[in-house]
């Protein structure tokens, strides 16, 4: 985030708070503080837009709308010192705004729409047909970079960089296509999680009403990668043909694999790396053949960037040859899928009552805003360049007393989808 200049900030009572130039690691933490957060919630957090989204048109202004809807939506807050409060709900936007401003949560999660107000759930229970239960909930997906640690060589753990970020783009493209084309959903909101992943909110009425079984089925439709550190082959393709959804996904995967993943991760550069790839080839003679050639090539004058590419060409040739069995030919697709296909956290999507972080929160560890991503333009999204709390406050300062509208406009500009009217009104 590279802010090594001094930042001046004006707080309401005109006290100046100085942020000094500090080493990278400390800056991250200092980029997030309750004071900064208070200002963010005070001036920048888009309450009206958030409320408009979640009420889906039932904002009490026309006949036939259900004014109770907002009051039955669960929110949860994580406060300072990791204090966690669940089953919060708000009757209207001013209550939501006032509560957030006063409590200043470090994280806000959005839960399901229940049959009664979450705050009144204990009064409701007792009686076999009166159970506190979720009625609607967006279909959500959470894609986390740590699930790809076994194939990342550039970073690991909580870190991300532009070399491994394309994995997220693959996931966004494939999921977006499947959800729109196969399942017919239209209102998708993609959000950067603030650190190392992305979330997807499917907001169509039909999606909100899906049962847990349906959510599980959709997730399994999207799942290809199974296994853990104990299994070698995690993508197993059987049958003489691929399902149309998979062959469509393959085109996306192949392109990204050859253009980004292969070179970025240097998958075939060194023995440690290429052995892992060769493990996925079920033919010892092919493996041996590749090993021989690559160990000899170590001293080749090919530029570093070209090594993986040229070796990949060789491997592909061997696998696509007519002399090998169908299962060996299949392994080409399996390799590509293993290194690119989306890895979804099924637990997040399966249950209606699962809570997920709200868009426009600030990530406590990075200070970055959880901004929406345009799936059509995701290749141009740079997670390392996402507005941070510190930057925003800076801009706010520079704007003077205009109230932060331009700044806020910038925030929301990241997400044309977020501002569209939701035609599901009264659905």
């Amino acid at each position: 985030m590279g802010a090594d200049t001094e930042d001046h900030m004006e707080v309401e009572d005109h006290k100046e708070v100085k942020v000094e130039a500090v080493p990278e690691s400390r800056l991250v933490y200092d980029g997030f503080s309750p004071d900064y957060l208070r200002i963010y919630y005070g001036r920048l957090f888009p309450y009206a837009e958030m409320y408009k989204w979640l009420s889906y048109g039932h904002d009490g202004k026309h006949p036939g709308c259900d004014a109770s809807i907002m009051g039955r939506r669960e929110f949860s807050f994580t406060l300072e010192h990791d204090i966690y409060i669940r089953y919060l709900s708000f009757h209207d936007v001013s209550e939501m705004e006032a509560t957030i401003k006063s409590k200043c949560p470090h994280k806000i999660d959005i839960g399901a729409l229940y049959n009664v107000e979450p705050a009144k759930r204990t009064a409701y229970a007792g009686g076999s047909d009166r159970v506190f239960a979720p009625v609607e909930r967006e279909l959500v997906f959470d894609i986390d970079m740590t699930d790809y640690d076994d194939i990342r060589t550039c970073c690991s753990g909580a870190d991300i960089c532009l070399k491994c970020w394309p994995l997220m783009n693959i996931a966004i493209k494939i999921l977006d296509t499947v959800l729109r084309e196969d399942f017919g959903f239209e209102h998708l909101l993609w959000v950067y999680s603030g650190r190392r992943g992305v979330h997807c909110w499917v907001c169509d009425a039909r999606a909100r009403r899906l049962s847990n079984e349906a959510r599980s089925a959709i997730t399994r439709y999207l799942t290809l990668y199974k296994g853990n550190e104990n299994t070698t082959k995690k993508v197993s393709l059987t049958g003489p043909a691929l399902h149309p959804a998979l062959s469509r996904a393959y085109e996306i995967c192949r392109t990204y694999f050859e253009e980004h993943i292969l070179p970025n991760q240097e998958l075939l550069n060194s023995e440690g790396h290429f052995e892992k790839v060769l493990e996925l080839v079920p033919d010892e003679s092919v493996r041996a053949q590749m090993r021989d050639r690559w160990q000899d090539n170590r001293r080749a004058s090919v530029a570093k960037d070209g090594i993986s590419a040229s070796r990949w060409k060789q491997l592909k040739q061997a696998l696509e040859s007519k002399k090998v069995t169908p299962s060996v030919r299949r392994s080409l697709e399996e390799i590509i899928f293993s290194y690119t296909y989306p890895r979804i956290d099924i637990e997040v999507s399966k249950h209606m009552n699962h809570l997920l972080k709200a868009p426009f929160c600030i990530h406590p560890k990075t200070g970055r805003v959880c901004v929406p991503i345009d799936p059509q333009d995701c290749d141009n999204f740079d997670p390392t360049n996402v507005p941070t709390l510190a930057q925003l406050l800076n801009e706010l300062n520079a704007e003077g007393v205009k109230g932060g509208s331009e700044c806020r406009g910038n925030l929301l500009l990241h997400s044309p989808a977020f501002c569209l009217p939701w035609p599901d009104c009264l659905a």
Partner: protein
Amino acid sequence: MEFRSKSSSVVAVKAYGGGAGKSKVSMYLVAPEADVAIEDFEQYALDRLHVLIAIEENRSRGKRAEDVEAAVMDLWRKHMRTVQSDDLLQKDVISHFVLRLVHCRTEELRRWFLEMETALFRIRFRMESPELQKAFIEEHKLPYKIISAAEFDGMKEKLAQVMRASGQGAGLVGETAFYKVPFEEVLDLVATRKVYIHQGHAYVPREQLVTIVANHFRSMLSQALVLTNRNWTAMFAAQEEDRLTPILEALSKRYLAPDYSKSASGSAVTLQELDGLAMRSFPLCMRHLYLKLQEDRHLRHGGRQQLGLFLKGIGLKLDDALAFWRGAFAPRMPAEKFDKEYAYNVRHNYGKEGKRTDYTPYSCMYIIMSSPGVGDHHGCPYRHFSPENLHAALSGMRLSPKSIDEVMEKTRGRHYQLACAATFEGAHSCQCDGINHPNQYFEQSRKFLKEQAEKATEMETDS
């Protein structure tokens, strides 16, 4: 559904809503409006139960699906026959609704009924012609549409690809008709990527449609069962305590008595043996009739039927039966009069006259439900006798006071068949779980006594 007793022997069933379907298979959404004789009420249900139990047995034996289907359809045709063909649907629907009542009360009953009825529906629906299946879907407004030729052409490739991918062979695609259904209806196919999905619709071959409709049937029936339970408990349980509840309870035990139309042991019972058998192995109801017959030299119609069929069930041949009854009536009635007025009925019971139905001996349920009047001696003593009379009769059987008390207690609790079982235990000093049929009592008694005799001879030869 509503029940009104027109008389104690007729149940009037009234439905809410209306509309009859054109197809032979029913979703049982609406009960028919009909007067149902109480014997039919039970009999129809029993017949259907035969079929459902057969489904369970066939499935548990691991038979192939085609074999199960063939066996079930066979049994369906056999058991659900009616005299007139337009009664067929009536019997189908009535029997379903009676069994629905029987199986709504506990989770276990509901689950069993749901499984078997869904399997039955599936088999019958699958046998229907494509036109009737289509009509069925339209009639019930299910959201499944057959795709047009143009649509099919557009997605033929993708459909074939899915078939190949899931190992089903692309050859099917040209021939099968495809239906467009909401993807929520085929979640297991979605989860395993065995179906082509586009814009929220899944495209399934006709074969698959059967499963979808069956699943729909299952969820409707599941909801209906819960409602039935609620309504029954709230509205009818109290007023039907004496009439329908015992029938429902018996049916829920799923006991399908062997017919006893032929004696199980195969060996005939001779006239000479009858007396000894009556004293030792007859259940109280039959013993009472037998004794009364000796005493009065006569029995009225109800008693003649109940005892007569029972005797047939234990193996008394027609000629012996005629001799028995003639002899029993003899002091009061000349043989010619007997032959003229009573012999016909005996022959009728043995299926030798008129309709030639081989009548089956009455089950306990049937006997309990009967209403003996003045001068009658049939019925179930545990139900129909006054406590004093019952006590006296049990003493006559030489039961110990302790046994008698047990029997009386069961009787007070209205557990007539358990009372009979307790009598059995008292008379034979061996365990008995419950009596569902007088002939069962007889056979169990014979078996036990035979074993006793064998053991006795063994011990004699040993010593």
